[in-house]
C-alpha cells in the first residue's frame, strides 16, 4: 500500500494559537439507576484530536489545494504528517498517521493579511503511534545500529546521503566508519516508506580509531574494540560453550560485540560462556592472535554476561591457562633496531605472569617480554638483543594487584636502552652493547598471556595488546591506550 505523505513544500508546524487538542475521543456514557453516569472505555477511543491552523502564502496555498484535491481525494484519505506530541525528541513533532475530520468539508480557509495569504484550519484525527512503521536507530558511530522488521531494507539518511542495509535478526548494521567526528543529522525509513523524524547524533572523539595516528608504526594491534578505523572486519572470532563459532564486529556502545546479523555476543551465548578463538589483527596483515585449543582460549562472556571492565568496555579474561599466539609473525623481532610491546591489562596471579612476549628460540629465551615479575604488583620489561646476551630487565612503578594498567615496554636495542612506562610513568635501564637484533626469524611466534615455554600464565584480564617494530612515542601510545581502558 502506498502511503500518502504531507507535501515537503508545506510547513507541518501548526500555529501555537490553535485551539486545544484532546487526547482521546469522548467515552460513551451509561446512565445508572442511581442517577449517576458510568463511562466505558473502548479501544477505538485512542484517537487524539488535534486542531491544526496555519497561514499559507499564495504558493503554499496552491500546493495545499493540489494536495487536498489530488492525493487526499478531497480529504477523504489518511496520510502521514508530523504532528505536535510534546515529545522531547527532535522538535516535538512526530510522524503519525492522520485523517482530516469531515474531509475537505471540515477544512476552513480564511483570507488574512489584506487577502495576500490564506489561513487554513482543520482538525486532525491522530491515529496511535504503532500505526506508523519506522525502523529505529539505536546508535550512530563507526557502525550505524538499529532495530526494525526482519527482511526489510532500511535506508538511513546521514547529512542528506542515504545508506542502506537489511534487517536481520531484528536489527540492522550499516557501516559508518567514514563519518567524521561531530554532529550528524540522521533519519531512517524502510525503503519506499516515509522517513522518521530527523535527529542529531554526535560522534565523539572516543568512538573509535584511537590508534589511527600510530597506525603506520604498528606491527599489529589486538583488541575486542575496533581501534583502527581502516579495519572494517570482525574484531574477534568467538566460540560458544557448545563450540559453535562466529565472527563478531565491534560497536562503541553496548552490546559492544555483534555478529553480522547484529545479534549481541551475550545474547548469542545465551546462559553459557563464550571464548575468544581469534582476535583479528586490525592492521589487516594476517597477524591474527589465535588459540585453537578450547581450554586455552580466554573468556569473553560468562554465564550470558559480557566480561567488562570498570568502564563497561569488553575485556578478555585469562585464568591462568589461556594465551593467544600471533600468526605469521616469526619475523617480528628479526633485524629490529627497536621493538615496542604494550597492553591494557590487569594481573591478579600470585607469581610471575607474562603479558606479551616475543621469543628467540622455542625454549625459554625471550627477545622481549612485557610481564608482571615477581608478582602482580610489579610490571616489568625484559629482553636481550642477541641469543648470547644477558637478560636485561627494568621494573616499572608498583601497581595494586588487579588494577587495570597501561603498560608500555620499549626495547631500544640499537639505542642501548630499555624503557617501561606504567600508566605513563617511565623507567629506563641500559643495554650494552647497543646493537640491533640478528637477521633471523624466531622459532616461535609472539604470545599474549604466557611465555614461549608455556609457563607464567596471565591471570586477570586484557583488553588491548600492541606490537610495533619501532620505538613508539610513549606519551602518544599511552594516550591511545587510555581511551580503550575497559
Amino acid at each position, binding site marked *: 500500500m502506498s502511503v500518502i505523505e504531507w507535501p515537503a513544500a508545506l510547513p507541518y508546524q501548526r500555529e501555537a494559537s490553535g485551539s486545544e487538542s484532546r487526547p482521546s475521543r469522548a467515552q460513551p456514557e451509561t446512565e445508572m439507576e442511581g442517577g449517576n453516569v458510568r463511562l466505558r472505555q473502548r479501544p477505538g477511543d485512542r484517537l487524539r484530536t488535534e486542531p491544526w491552523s496555519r497561514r499559507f502564502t499564495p504558493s503554499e496555498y496552491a500546493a495545499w489545494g493540489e494536495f487536498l484535491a489530488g492525493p487526499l481525494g478531497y480529504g477523504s484519505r489518511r496520510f502521514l504528517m508530523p504532528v505536535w506530541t510534546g515529545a522531547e525528541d527532535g522538535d516535538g513533532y512526530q510522524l503519525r498517521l492522520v485523517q482530516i475530520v469531515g474531509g475537505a468539508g471540515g477544512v476552513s480557509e480564511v483570507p488574512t493579511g489584506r487577502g495576500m495569504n490564506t489561513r487554513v484550519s482543520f482538525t486532525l484525527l491522530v491515529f496511535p503511534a504503532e500505526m506508523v512503521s519506522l525502523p529505529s536507530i539505536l546508535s550512530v558511530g563507526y557502525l550505524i545500529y538499529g532495530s526494525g522488521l526482519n527482511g526489510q531494507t532500511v535506508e538511513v539518511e546521514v547529512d542528506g546521503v542515504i545508506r542502506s542495509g537489511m534487517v536481520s535478526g531484528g536489527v540492522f548494521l550499516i557501516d559508518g566508519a567514514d563519518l567524521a567526528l561531530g554532529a550528524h543529522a540522521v533519519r531512517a525509513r524502510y525503503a519506499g516508506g516515509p522517513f522518521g523524524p530527523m535527529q542529531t547524533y554526535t560522534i565523539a572523539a572516543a568512538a573509535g580509531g584511537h590508534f589511527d595516528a600510530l597506525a603506520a608504526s604498528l606491527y599489529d594491534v589486538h583488541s575486542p574494540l575496533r581501534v583502527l578505523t581502516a579495519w572494517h572486519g570482525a574484531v574477534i572470532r568467538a566460540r560458544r*560453550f557448545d563450540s559453535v563459532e562466529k565472527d563478531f564486529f565491534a560497536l562503541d556502545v553496548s552490546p559492544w560485540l555483534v555478529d553480522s546479523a547484529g545479534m549481541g555476543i551475550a545474547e548469542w551465548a545465551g546462559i553459557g560462556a563464550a571464548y575468544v578463538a581469534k582476535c583479528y589483527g586490525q592492521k589487516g596483515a594476517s597477524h591474527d592472535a*589465535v*588459540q*585453537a585449543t578450547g*581450554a586455552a582460549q580466554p573468556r569473553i562472556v560468562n554465564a550470558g554476561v559480557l566480561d567488562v571492565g570498570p568502564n563497561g568496555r569488553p575485556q578478555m579474561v585469562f585464568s591462568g591457562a589461556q594465551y593467544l599466539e600471533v600468526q605469521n609473525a616469526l619475523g617480528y623481532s628479526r633485524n629490529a633496531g627497536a621493538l615496542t610491546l604494550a597492553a591494557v591489562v590487569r594481573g591478579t596471579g600470585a607469581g610471575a605472569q607474562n603479558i606479551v612476549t616475543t621469543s628467540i628460540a622455542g625454549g*625459554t629465551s625471550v627477545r622481549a617480554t612485557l610481564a608482571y615479575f615477581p608478582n602482580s604488583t610489579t610490571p616489568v620489561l625484559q629482553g636481550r638483543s642477541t641469543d648470547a646476551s644477558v*637478560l636485561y630487565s627494568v621494573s616499572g612503578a608498583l601497581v595494586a594487584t588487579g588494577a587495570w594498567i597501561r603498560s608500555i615496554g620499549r626495547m631500544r636495542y640499537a639505542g642501548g636502552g630499555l624503557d617501561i612506562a606504567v600508566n605513563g610513568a617511565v623507567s629506563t635501564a641500559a643495554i650494552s652493547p647497543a646493537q640491533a637484533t640478528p637477521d633471523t626469524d624466531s622459532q616461535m611466534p609472539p604470545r599474549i598471556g604466557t611465555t614461549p615455554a*608455556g609457563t607464567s600464565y596471565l591471570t586477570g584480564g586484557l583488553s588491548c595488546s600492541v606490537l610495533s617494530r619501532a620505538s613508539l612515542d610513549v606519551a602518544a601510545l599511552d594516550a591511545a591506550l587510555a581511551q580503550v581502558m575497559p
Partner: protein
Amino acid sequence: MSYLIVDTVAEAQARSAQAWLDCGYEAEATYLLWSVVAHPVDGRAALVVPTTPADAHIGLSQAAYDALLTNEERAALLPDLPADWTPESD
C-alpha cells in the same frame, strides 16, 4: 588439572584433536580440546586435562567429558607435572 604424558608433541596434538571431534564438535578455528606442554629437552609432550568440562571451556556433561579418556589413559593421568617439565624460564 591432570596431565597425560605421551611420546611426542605431534602425538599429543593428534590426541587433543581427536578428543575435540569425540565431543561432537566441528573443527573450525578451534580444533583442539586440551593444551599441550612440550618437555623442554626430551621431545615428549603432556596433555593438560582439566578436571571438569567447564574448566575445559566446553558444554558437555561431566560423564560425557570423562568418557573422552580411555581407561588406560585415565589410569596414566598424573596430578602434577614433574619438576623437569617446567624449568625456570625468562
